[in-house]
């Protein structure tokens, strides 16, 4: 085994390390989540202030979003970008620096949030120094992606690359603005204005960061695994530009019943429903790519994860558009329905695609991963976990919403939630098992197998024909 280097310049090291870090954070974040879920059933379980539900909840969320999802998707995306450019990453050293910056930010966030260092905006809880780390890492990432694409040998810019560029550019803007980074102490504005900015950020961290990366990876892996070209490049245009144009305006649907300006809510509602156009264009494109190749799904771990991810994308997007309507919000706002929606979107859609893409990259790097059987087992654990999660949390949300509408107080409904909360904690163990299997499988693959030779990675590779279609 080669000596460990912090800054590893070997080809593919950035992608590999991002993916492995993501898998590690997945396990850490879901363990935090399990503790939080258990505390909802047994509130006196833990006495230490650093492990109380309200303090670890943001740690669970941010470690998942910025640790697990971001890192795994970045790793897979860097791989895809360089693969599609048929050129190595511009700088593996810079990539490694980005990786350590990012890991430092996630670790600092995971520890500092339970210690009470928080800016209190949902998904934007990280304090200013961590924001700076993230923005710096994002800027380095953008530089690496742009420079890699500049030196691409394949002139055609495939749709995956659009999403990679779109995500880093838009997220740099959204992260800086949404975290109000020119106010280092509070990261906030005043009053309702602050709420509007915070939810612009809160929704867009999925809208322009997590989701575009996941969509781009679908475009990359699904045609390859199905062994069939993308159904339509025109449709992918329809799925791309309207997606960003609609998505960035939907933040205020989190404030439909708060005293925000009416026209702002209307913009959010219209765009939330309009978002279905690019979503369905994307899904049609993916599923039509699979036409005649559905039989390939069960055999490939990557395709399994990614196909399941697209199905959950269908459900979570349709659900999200309906949830942005005022009539539905009157029943379901503030309830666990929303928690179920968030888990379906982040774990069910983006998480599944991240896992599928992670396995895909490792298989390309090492020929095969350590245990294919374990990977399939992980898929079923996670599928049972997330399907059950969505079911019990939606059920809990309906119970809460209908009881509140009927005049019950929040306190009176609490006993009704014990069973769904317990079921959720139990189902969480399925997801954690999946995360543990994945981390183990990745570790054994990376440290147990010799990487295959990848001629297209060599900077001096001349002919592309040798690698086309691989």
């Amino acid at each position: 085994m080669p000596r460990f280097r912090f800054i590893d310049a070997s080809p593919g090291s950035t992608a590999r390390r991002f993916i492995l870090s993501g898998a590690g954070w997945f396990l850490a974040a879901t363990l935090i989540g399990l503790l939080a879920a258990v505390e909802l059933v047994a509130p006196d379980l833990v006495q230490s202030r650093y492990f109380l539900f309200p303090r670890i909840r943001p740690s669970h969320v941010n470690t998942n979003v910025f640790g697990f999802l971001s890192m795994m998707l970045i790793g897979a995306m860097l791989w895809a970008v360089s693969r599609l450019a048929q050129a190595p990453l511009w700088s593996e050293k810079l990539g490694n620096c980005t990786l350590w910056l990012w890991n430092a930010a996630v670790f600092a966030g995971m520890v500092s949030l339970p210690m009470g260092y928080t800016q209190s905006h949902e998904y934007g809880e990280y304090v200013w120094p961590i924001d700076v780390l993230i923005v710096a890492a994002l800027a380095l990432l953008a530089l690496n992606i742009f420079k890699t694409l500049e030196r691409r040998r394949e002139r055609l810019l495939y749709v995956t690359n659009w999403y990679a560029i779109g995500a880093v550019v838009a997220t740099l803007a959204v992260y800086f603005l949404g975290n109000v980074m020119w106010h280092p102490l509070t990261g906030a504005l005043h009053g309702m204005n602050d709420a509007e900015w915070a939810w612009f950020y809160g929704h867009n961290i999925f809208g322009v960061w997590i989701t575009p990366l996941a969509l781009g990876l679908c475009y990359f892996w699904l045609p390859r695994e199905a062994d069939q070209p993308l159904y339509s490049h025109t449709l992918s245009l329809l799925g791309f530009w309207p997606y960003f144009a609609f998505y960035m305006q939907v933040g205020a649907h989190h404030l439909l019943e708060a005293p925000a300006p009416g026209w702002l809510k209307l913009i959010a509602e219209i765009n939330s429903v309009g978002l279905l156009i690019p979503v369905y264009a994307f899904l049609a494109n993916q599923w039509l790519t699979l036409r005649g190749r559905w039989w390939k799904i069960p055999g490939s771990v990557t395709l399994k994860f990614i196909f399941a991810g697209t199905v959950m994308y269908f459900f979570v997007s349709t659900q999200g558009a309906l949830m942005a309507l005022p009539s539905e919000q009157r029943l379901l706002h503030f309830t666990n329905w929303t928690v179920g929606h968030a888990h379906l979107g982040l774990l069910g859609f983006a998480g599944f695609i991240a896992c599928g893409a992670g396995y895909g990259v490792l298989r390309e790097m090492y020929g095969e991963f350590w245990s294919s059987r374990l990977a399939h087992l992980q898929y079923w654990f996670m599928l049972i976990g997330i399907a059950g999660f969505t079911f019990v949390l939606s059920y809990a949300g309906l119970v809460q919403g209908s009881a509140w509408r009927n005049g019950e107080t929040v306190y009176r409904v609490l006993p009704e939630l014990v069973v769904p909360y317990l079921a959720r904690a139990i189902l969480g163990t399925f997801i954690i098992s999946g995360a543990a299997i994945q981390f183990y499988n990745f570790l054994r693959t990376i440290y147990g197998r010799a990487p295959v030779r990848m001629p297209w990675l060599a900077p001096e590779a001349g002919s592309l024909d040798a690698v086309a279609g691989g």
Partner: protein
Amino acid sequence: MGMTPRMVGVGMAIIASATAWSVLFLPGLTAPIRPSAIARRLTPLEARGRILYIRNGCIGCHTQYVRPSDWGLSALRVSQPGDYVYDQPHLLGSERTGPDLSQEGGQHTNDWHWAHFRDPRLTRPASIMPRFRFLSRPRMRALIAYVQSLGGKMADARMARQNDWHRRLLAAWRRGEDANADFLYRRVPAPWRVLPNPYPATQAALARGRFVYEQECINCHGPLGDGNGPAARYLLPRPFNFTLLKRHPWSGGLLYYQIMNGITGSAMPYFKQDLESAKIWDVSNYIAVEFIGKNIDSGETGSGIPAAREPAPPPRP
């Protein structure tokens, strides 16, 4: 036209700036928000409490705005944009695992909050809120001051009333338990003092009453009804000892009135939001039969006759 990195980057920058203009800057520019009638700045103590509220993640479970569709303890007034002008960051929240707190100030006394933060199960047995007993005394005071400020000037009015009654109740309580019982009796409007419980104290009613008592009352008033529940040591005046009523005038209506409205100035909260009227009558019957040892319901078994319209029974010693 083929897509190039530059084109995607520039397109994205255009979308981002157009969106930022329309949904970020425009709301602030077109709708300058003035303080509402109830908004006020926090005192330094309350501001310290607000920081504790943020650092302990209270926003994860508690919202701070009332919607037009809301019921419940805090739904006194639909929130207005001007309520939040002094908030930085905003604490609107997005999840109601616990109750909304936008009008929490003055709903309970400080000693209730003290017991509640030490162990939420003391005051609210079904609560799933964690215990905040790690907070030092000055921090606890700051946090409670902040919670009591929620609702702005409406909260101030409620707090003034709480504090005023608290002084009077404390004085009565210090004069001895019999004087205290008399004082509480006189506070209840006369018609309620002679109103018999319209629900008969059947075995089923007593079982329901016991269920409610164990869910809502037992931690202060204790399993024997003598006011020695586990929360009692945090509260002043102490929870009422029902067995005292063996030598004082009382009625089902008196118990109902106190449970429904609470006793302003003491930790006894009002239950009109949490309990339907039948449940309050049932728990009144349970208290009467179990702790006072008497059943003075109206003796009715049928329905349709409002007991309050019948000639009042003579007050019993």
